[in-house]
């Protein structure tokens, strides 16, 4: 066999081994944040907190450092209302916050005002924080988004949410009642029909124009279940399994669906089943 064939065969074979390894590993794409239109006047406290959680896990990139790996205080494991109160009482605290909400806002906008011991930049003796300012690039949270994150941090341990819900008047930066935010998830469905398609309900259920025997018929669900039971069957489908159907409905709709989407779907099913 000619030398050229042998060496090319060897080299290409080795290249293919590396390619194979790269393709055998879990495949994860790093999606860029997508723009999403929200109506600030349509928030409930629940949906506002949910938005805060989405931002905390997604666009805010908070969990990159604030996790159990020790790079920054583990916010999800701490009661942030109690922790904030303790920090404001610390003799090292030089900020101007007088309450928890102000402290949390200050810590996001001026992270170096108070650096938790052991978490400062190397060589700064805990006087400089490695945390980026969240209203600046690359994070660029808006005022509404910062408020949502504060609401989430207050609510996650059952504390009182003191942040005022956004209103149309409170968002003067937009000319209309809608503003644009960026979320690492698909845009919210605008209608109940769109939500039913987006969440794949039509795959197993007979609803809208589709017929499917896999799950119970949703066109008549309102005649069998109350509004609360319909809601429960979506967010906690294994609580009650409809007789004669397998327990295969996804259990993560409570995490994936926005409150408004859930409300729209429930209302649609109630109205269409009457």
């Amino acid at each position, binding site marked *: 066999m000619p030398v050229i064939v042998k060496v090319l065969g060897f080299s290409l074979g080795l290249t293919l081994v590396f390619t194979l390894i790269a393709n055998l590993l879990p495949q994860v794409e*790093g999606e860029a944040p997508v723009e999403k239109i929200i109506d600030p006047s349509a928030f409930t406290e629940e949906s506002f907190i949910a938005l805060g959680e989405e931002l905390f896990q997604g666009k805010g990139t908070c969990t990159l450092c604030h996790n159990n790996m020790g790079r920054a205080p583990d916010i999800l494991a701490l009661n942030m209302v109690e922790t904030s109160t303790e920090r404001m009482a610390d003799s090292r605290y030089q900020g101007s916050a007088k309450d928890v909400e102000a402290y949390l806002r200050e810590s996001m906008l001026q992270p170096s005002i108070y650096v938790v011991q052991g978490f400062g930049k190397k060589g700064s003796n805990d006087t400089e924080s490695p945390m980026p300012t969240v209203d600046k690039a690359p994070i660029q949270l808006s005022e509404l988004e910062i408020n949502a994150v504060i609401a989430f941090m207050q609510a996650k341990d059952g504390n009182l949410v003191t942040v005022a819900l956004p209103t149309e008047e409170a968002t003067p930066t937009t000319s209309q009642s809608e503003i644009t935010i960026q979320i690492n998830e698909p845009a919210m469905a605008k209608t109940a029909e769109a939500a039913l398609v987006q969440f794949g309900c039509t795959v197993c259920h007979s609803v809208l124009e589709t017929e499917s025997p896999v799950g119970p018929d949703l066109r008549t669900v309102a005649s069998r279940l109350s509004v609360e039971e319909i809601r429960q069957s979506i967010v906690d489908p294994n609580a009650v399994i409809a007789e004669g159907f397998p327990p295969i409905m996804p259990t993560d709709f409570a995490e994936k669906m926005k409150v408004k989407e859930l409300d729209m779907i429930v209302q649609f099913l109630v109205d269409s089943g009457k």
Partner: protein
Amino acid sequence: MHIRLILLIILLVGFVTPSLAEIASNSSEVVANTETTLTPAPELKRSDYPNMGFSSRSVVWILAQMHLFFAAFVLAVPIFVLVIEFIGFKYKDDRYDDMAHEFMKISITAYSITALFGGSLAFALFLLYPQFMAYMMRVFNTQTLVYAGLFFAESALLYIYYYGWNAMRYGEAKWGHLTIGLLLNAVGTTLLVVANSWATFMMAPSGINEVGAVTGSIWEIMKGPLWNPLNLHRVLANIAFGGAVVGAYAAYKFLSAKTMAEKAHYDWMGYTSNFIAVLAFLPLPFAGYWLMAEIYAYSQQMGITAMGGILAWLFVVQAILIGTILLSANYYLWSGMSRCEGSERYTWMIKYIALVLIVGFLIWVTPHTLILTPSEVATLGGSHHHTLGPLGIMPAKNIAVNLMLIATFLSFQLYRRSDKVITVSWAKAGNALMVAIYVIAIANIIFAGVYYGYFTNTVYKVGSSVMQVASTLIVIIGGVIIDTLMFKNAKTLPSTWGKVNNFSQYALFALPVAFTWLMALMGYVRSSVRTNWHVYTVMKDNSPENYIPAIGHAGNMMTIATVLFLLIIVFIFWIASLSNTKQVPEVDNASNC
């Protein structure tokens, strides 16, 4: 006449270089005084990106990668060629001079291919990302013309250096030739660092305000926080890469050789290439640490995105590639020990070195922070594996990589000692000192990694790696010094160049393949840490492909670039061999009658 010619060139280069620098400096001052500098970076919409019906990113990716491969090669080869040429000149050994000239022969063909890919890349960028390129031109302004000017100087010096080789081979003229080589490398390295400033500006911009308007001089724009770490990393990596590629050439020629003399020549050439590649490779992880440390210092978010976020799996592939490089380089050295009977004194150690390399490799490929599905977390019983989890964190990997580097250096040391019988009176004490250095360094690397890595907080974990790196460097530097002193008046045992098995030559092919793939992989990381930004924090990427591609897709792209590079390199090898081929005129029997 040659001397006068050289002086003229030096004067010309000396004249041209300050003039270009002056242009850049003046222009930045002029620009700084005009209103255009206060224009922010454009905010692009999806419609601002031309839709050509194919993947713009893929086209730019392949072209940029090809340009980088060839540029790395043609900038690196003259660096070690100059050193080899100088060694040949100093020791009056024509073999070195011939080898250096042959290396340049390969490099010169690659030079025009570099320019072809560079031009294609520029056209593709202006066509597919016009707004981004307009912004980059606004920021870097006439520095780009300085770059073009340097390219002219590089071309002139390269051609004079190569084609003037035999005309300036001996005596005073050789000094002139070496000076041209030095200038060639100075201009080449300047080209590299100028181009690096574009890449580091995109990652960690400087000399602009928070909306991307130019506020600083061109020097402030270039001298971002990542510029020097990347410069060092790329110079070292280029030399290692260049050494590996010419090593493959030598291996190809060795396998095709018809005579023992040819085999001996290319065996020696392959050994030298491997030596260059591994010598440049050994400090590379430390340059990598510096670059990553600066990335973390610039933006912790960016550092975590690279090391512990979505790109974490990629470091498993990196470990496999570096493992391939180290195992290949060591295997080549072990095989090469068969050239000399004196090596039998050391062959018993090979199995232990191999064990360290394999265990180190396995620790290095153990992943740590991974993106897991809930079911995978449930199966693992947490985000990390109970037993293997501790091996996934950096302290374990630092121990592994430092021990692998020390093991590789030991292979080198044993190889160099194979053909020598040390005669100095203090040989025993010298050997004892060398063993002591190894033992203390290894103990220190393991202690620092285990104690500071697992029993103290994060700040000390990072600090401990400095101790480990220092230990490894002490072994390497101490080993070179002790051996140099001990080899004085050493008796040299006979060794036969060309007496090496053919399998060992395949290790010289594995090196460039792994290096090429590794360069592509690290380019993917470097580019991906910007996430959805053209220029981090000031200019968003809103193109349809502004996401970080999955490792499988990226791997396929890297393979396309690597295979393309390999095919063109084979073509270059063929062209280089073709120049030695001379057709013998046919004998006309009729006329003879």
